[in-house]
């Protein structure tokens, strides 16, 4: 006899009480793994760039290799960050309205900054 109180359909869907399954967990780990090489590359670059002036910073930023890796680092970093901030907000903010507003806000901020970084990076790289 099946001792699980969940229905077979519920088990097959695997969405649980939050109705979103392991999506949040999985995306957090996926972005974490992606960020390991990106952050190491970025940390080394940052140390090497320390004290760089306008011209040096721009010449570094305009390399296609740097553009790709930097846009990836910022966008995946923002995605990973907003997932983490969402958990922090869900843990500590108990007013439903404020909680929802904050979660919406961090998602909007992440998209806005991601696009801003991408456009700025391309403007430098493509000579705007």
């Amino acid at each position: 006899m099946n001792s699980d109180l969940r229905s077979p359909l519920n088990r097959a869907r695997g969405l649980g009480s939050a109705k979103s399954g392991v999506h949040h967990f999985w995306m957090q780990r996926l972005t974490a793994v992606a960020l390991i090489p990106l952050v190491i590359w970025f940390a080394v670059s940052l140390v090497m760039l320390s004290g760089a002036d306008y011209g040096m910073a721009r010449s570094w930023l305009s390399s296609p290799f740097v553009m790709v890796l930097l846009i990836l680092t910022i966008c995946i970093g923002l995605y990973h960050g907003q997932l983490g901030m969402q958990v922090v907000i869900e843990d500590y903010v108990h007013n439903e309205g404020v909680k929802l507003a904050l979660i919406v806000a961090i998602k909007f901020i992440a998209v806005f900054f991601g696009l801003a970084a991408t456009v700025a990076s391309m403007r430098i790289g493509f000579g705007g």
Partner: protein
Amino acid sequence: MSVANRPVHRPLSPHLQVYRPQLTSTLSILHRATGIALSLGVLYLTVWVVCAAGSYETYARFQAFNSSIVGRLVLGGWLFCMFYHLFNGIRHLFWDMGYGFEIKDAYRSGWIVVAVSLVATAISWIVGLRLI
């Protein structure tokens, strides 16, 4: 208000301050704290790229803050957060795969993360500030 809806003042579980701080709990809290700091750091990184895409004067204003004492401390602090969150994040990924749950292993990996983060931060400061 009905009896069922009346708030019940049940005893709460002991608050954090009654526990002796342990390496494992401290590092767990630090992981979250550095994560929050880095969420702001990636926004600041975006501001850097946007300023670099702007005029020389815009970038100079931004760099003036970065090379100030406060700016250096903030950037250096972010660097530590980045290394700590990176290495402790790798520790978390091993836990996710089911490794390192024994108390002894959790302490050993914790101290390794602390040591590697501090060494990486120190090397970055020394090389970044061109001290050698």
